[in-house]
């Protein structure tokens, strides 16, 4: 970031209680946090706003813990992940997630059959993703959907790289199984 204070500098200012810096971090990363959370089945549209707010409100308190080992963005996504994990969910919400994936909009396809197949596949992926442990969901979303580097994610979340790869592997394995035709091993 060369045209303003760096992300790291903003975070450091935020740690000192600078409200403007907190606003600046929100401006830079709230979109990424929203997108990340919306990919996590453990959050829904009802809780997402609260988690985004909780994430940024947490930054002034935790910013001092940032050690520069990952990008600020990844680190903030880690805070968001923790906030999401701690979000209390009701059983109704859990059901709502599953229902949500039943109505996932999909890209137009040339044939109704293909469209139905694709919709079913997405349903299965969505449900399988929702049943994964939170840490595996996060690993899959950040590494495969947000295309963040595994090394950066591991550092941002303060976990060994091997742990991150294992979580990602477990997630993919479960999701690959969801892709397999019904009845297939």
């Amino acid at each position, binding site marked *: 970031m*060369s*045209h*303003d*204070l*760096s992300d*790291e*500098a*903003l975070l*450091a*200012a935020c740690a*000192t*209680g*600078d*409200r*403007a810096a*907190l*606003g600046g971090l*929100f*401006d830079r990363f*709230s*979109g990424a946090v*929203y*997108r990340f959370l*919306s*990919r996590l089945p453990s959050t829904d*549209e009802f809780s*997402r*706003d609260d988690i*985004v*707010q909780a994430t*940024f*409100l947490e930054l*002034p*308190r935790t910013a001092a813990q940032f050690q520069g080992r990952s990008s600020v963005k990844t680190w903030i996504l880690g805070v968001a992940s923790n906030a999401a994990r701690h979000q209390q969910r009701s059983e109704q919400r859990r059901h709502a997630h599953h229902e*949500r*994936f039943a109505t*996932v*909009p*999909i*890209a137009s396809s040339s044939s109704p059959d293909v469209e139905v197949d*694709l919709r079913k*596949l*997405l349903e299965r*992926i*969505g449900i399988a*993703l929702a049943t994964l442990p939170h840490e595996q969901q996060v690993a*899959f979303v950040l*590494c*495969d*959907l947000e295309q963040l580097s*595994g090394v950066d994610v591991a550092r941002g979340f303060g976990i060994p790289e091997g742990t991150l*790869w*294992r979580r*990602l*592997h477990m997630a*993919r*394995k479960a*999701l*690959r199984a969801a*892709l397999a035709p019904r009845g297939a091993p």
Partner: protein
Amino acid sequence: MTCPTELELDQAISTGADHEMREHVASCPACRAIWDETERLIVLAGQLQVAQPGGAMLEERRTAMLAAWVPPEPAIKVPTPRWRIGAVGASIAVAVALVIVIGTREHASPPAIAAHPSRGTVHPHDGAVFRLAFSPPDEIVRLRDGVIDIDVDPLASGERFRVVVGTDEVEVRGTSFEVRAHADHLIAVHVGHGRVEVRVAGSPVIVLGNGDAWQLPVPAPITPPANLPMPPMPPIMPPMPPMHHATIARQPDPIAPPVTTTAQEVAFDQGWDALRRGDYGPAAAAFGRAIALAPDGALSEDATFWHAVSLARLQRTTDAIAALRAFLDAFPTSTRADEASAMLGWLLVDTHEYFEARRRFEVAKNGLSPAVRESAVKGLAALPTAR
């Protein structure tokens, strides 16, 4: 090569496979199937619904988030005996009463709003319309209408706390004083103790000491335009950061003149609003207007700074460099000078003007703000080593 484990395959999919792995996957149906299935999975999962928040919604959440933020409490102060206050010069309570006649009546006061982590706490009276425009170290409370009382803690070196009314401003210098304003104009200032700088547009700075008073020499005769109704009171706004409106709707007062807003203030507000929305082009244009409308106005320093920031965010690097140089030339003692120096340093790195970049970073490196100092140190580290 023997088949890698699924874990190794998964890692290779993310980090990239080496030559040997690629050859193996190409020739091994089992590994190839896992590889292809994973890539398919990633493509498909990418089609799952993703919420895209709109700009307006984000702005709303931003406002709510900042309003909800309870800054960390300062260290608890042990009550100091009164006899010690004078000795240490601590614990200054500054009461600022800015009075603009708007026909207010006796009403319960809205809750105090802390301009935090500011040194000041604003206590708005009913009908007060104000905004906590900038946070420390250069705090500005911009008041348009009504009465506000402000308590200000002692300011540290490099910190400022100003109250801006129209093109006039009163700056706290560790003292206790009272300010009266009328229709966006300063009317009188009385200093209890300490020192105050009074800056009235078009006049030299007046410094008032203990017991001094300043009064507008000739009250400006302002006549309300005939048959011009007062605008309706806007709805209550969130506490931060938009302009505050106290809760009591006001009625047109036949005595009070209409409250005016200076053209510079209007342009500045437009620039700030555009900047917050991320519309950097309109922001730069509006701040430019604010500067042109009143080059010596109370908001010129801030407008010049934010004009440069807007240009930088537009990636108009050459213009931004020129604007930042102009800012630093015009306001070398500004509390934003260090930040501007750091920003200018980074822009100069982009244009490969390393000599000046180093000079700017060296200045910023000694700035008051830890964030600026950190940025400057990183900037210095980013410079190519001398040949």
